[in-house]
């Protein structure tokens, strides 16, 4: 057996680096969507591998719902600074103030509201490409998406009319106003992401590891109790998302498997306190990662509908 041979992680890595460099060379104003979550953490390492010793030739962009885990925000800001990258943050609250988005009556989750905020940021900075950490194994609609996913001038995805993607010859061409979403981790699984984090010794936010947290039961999941409302000069951002007086708040040993924001992330009960523990847990898991995402449970086509509207 020759030594000229790549194992699966090396193969996925070289494929993703190739995709990242195609973005840097093929677009004028790309951005990298960085939330601080595990998938985008891998994207950052791949960007270093693709572009060092030069600078990473694109800013990082994050759209906040206003319900983020504070640990995630801290981690996101610190990593961007460590890498010397420009971090652009746009938020749903800002979008309310500017009239770009309006609260949906009766809807506490702001997941859907990230769509207009993202599209407005793309327009504001004239981004022609956004790199995202989405993976095809996450969800059925994602399974049909290309590495280079074309969006029309309204940010829409048309699943029936995607460009064929052959060999590694990606078609990055756009007309003005059009946009591309590029997913270097398309072929990665949840397990690959954790194995890569282990191999590369990547730091992840501590909420991925087991910790004690107050949670309450909602929609069959353990939802974290939001932080207390301290600034009485502003309305409570978690109004309506707090446990009621009769709800049973319990202190549990939990961690996150996938991160949306505080009101749509189900915590899983887990003693996993290291990346090795997490890998063992993922290997033995009997439900998919997105099984703990309230945003995907809305309907069988929830993701398909959001993507058509411009979700990433």
């Amino acid at each position, binding site marked *: *057996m*020759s030594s*000229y*041979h*790549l*194992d*699966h992680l*090396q*193969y996925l*890595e*070289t*494929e993703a*680096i*190739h995709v990242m*460099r*195609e973005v*840097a*060379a093929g677009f004028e104003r790309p951005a990298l969507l960085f939330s601080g979550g595990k998938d985008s953490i891998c994207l950052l390492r791949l960007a270093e*591998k*693709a*572009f*060092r*010793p*030069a*600078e990473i030739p694109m800013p990082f962009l994050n759209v906040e719902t206003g319900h983020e885990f504070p640990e995630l925000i801290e981690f996101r800001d610190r990593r961007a600074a460590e890498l010397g990258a420009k971090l652009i943050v746009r938020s749903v609250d800002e979008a309310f103030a500017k009239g770009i988005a309006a609260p949906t009556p009766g809807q506490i989750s702001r997941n859907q509201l990230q769509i207009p905020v993202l599209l407005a940021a793309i327009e504001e900075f004239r981004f022609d490409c956004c790199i995202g950490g989405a993976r*095809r*194994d996450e*969800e*059925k609609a994602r*399974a*049909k998406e290309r590495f280079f996913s074309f969006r029309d001038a309204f940010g829409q995805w048309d*699943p*029936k009319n*995607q*460009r*064929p*993607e*052959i*060999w*590694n*010859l990606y*078609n990055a*061409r*756009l*007309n003005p106003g059009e946009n591309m979403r590029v997913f270097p981790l398309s*072929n990665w*699984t949840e397990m*690959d992401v954790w*194995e890569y984090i*282990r*191999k590369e010794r990547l730091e992840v936010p501590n909420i991925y590891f087991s910790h004690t947290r107050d949670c309450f039961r909602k929609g069959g999941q353990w939802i974290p109790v939001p932080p207390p409302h301290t600034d009485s000069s502003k309305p409570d951002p978690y109004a309506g998302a707090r446990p009621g007086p009769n709800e049973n708040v319990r202190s549990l040993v939990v961690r996150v498997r996938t991160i949306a924001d505080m009101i749509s992330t189900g915590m899983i009960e887990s003693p996993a306190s290291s990346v*090795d523990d997490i890998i063992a847990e993922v290997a033995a*898991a*009997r*439900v*998919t990662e997105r*099984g703990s995402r309230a945003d995907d449970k809305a309907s*069988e*086509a929830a993701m*398909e509908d959001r993507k058509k509207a411009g979700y990433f």
Partner: protein
Amino acid sequence: MPAPHSIELLRFNTCGSVDDGKSTLIGRLLYDSKSLMEDQIEALERSADITGGGQINLANLTDGLRAEREQGITIDVAYRYFATPRRKFIVADTPGHVQYTRNMVTGASTANLSVVLVDARQGVIEQSRRHTYIASLLRIPHVVIAVNKMDLVGWSEARFQEIRDEFESFLPLLDLKDVKFIPMSALNGDNVVEPSVHTPWFAGPTLLGHLETVHIGSDWNMGAFRFPVQWVNRPNNPRDPHLHDFRGFSGQIAGGIVRVGQRVMVLPSGLKSTVKEIWTLDGPLQEAFCPQSVTLVLADDLDISRGDTLVGMEFLPGLSSELHAKVCWMHPRPLQRGRRYLLKHGTQIVQAAVTTVENRINVATYQAEPEPPELAMNDIGEIRLKTARPLAYDGYVTNRLTGAFVLIEQGTNATVAAGMLHPPLESVRPEYSDFAI
């Protein structure tokens, strides 16, 4: 904790006509290899109650879009992922109905292996001949003919042998090196993951057994060194003074091996230099190989940009602006002689005009029909092209990366064709230079 043992990745695609049981086969592989999760099985059971009369439909696993579930069809290439302790797998499930050629070419372009499904009751049909043709055209290294629905022919060894004989009557016309035949029932799981009790006469492996063990170590081209330059790496304000003059050429090796100290030629210019350093984030390498992504530093300060190709001095490629190729047409607007397109080859995009449409290949009979008026969607044919600047290329038979291109329609930017280049008539000579000295 020590790193786990190295696991290989095998990419395969499945092809068959409607109702051959492709999606069922993939569902069976996922289900029996315990790659399905409880919420996926729950979702299957939910949709079974709605659309399947209570019967779990394994095909619903791969039919991801609402329109597909409603119409009971597969619109596009769907990718699935599963793993066993021996290998990781990426499956491209390609639909069998209209647009099958376009989608199959897409799914097959990155595959190590193709699974061609045949209904044991029907045996070889026109589609079977098309699918094996495309597998050969795309030069998929390994092919499995899955003779499915064997339960419906009473697990007849004679029937299996008959189908096998029929395939073997035309396989010599194709360029397939490794073809395996496996009798199975995807619906019941026989010979998919678990060996069947119904086929004592069959000594071969199950499908999964074959997928786990087929040798794929030599599927990448380890011959001549080819390096399409993707991106020029020049740090703007390096903190490290050593990097002030750093000028690296980043890319993915598309063929062969590169070593520090090796002589290389830049094409199309013909300039020559020596590899001074193979830079990676993980430290410098002494050598690197296909398909690694690296950054090369050369000993000389040459004018090199994206779209140029660095090649080894042995086994030089062709260099020409007149190209001869087979194409698969992928767009509703047909290909006609004289049309101009953008051609993407490696990391460059050039203007190209179609000068001749030589023939259209009947993929059921393998006969070439000369001088067709046009190539319509899903047609395969041979064409000649003239490009605005010369390409450094190899025949697709030699290198699946440097011998491939796509055509892009100007204006709409639609990807309209996949092309496979014929080997060059002559190679660049070692003394070649584009510059008069």
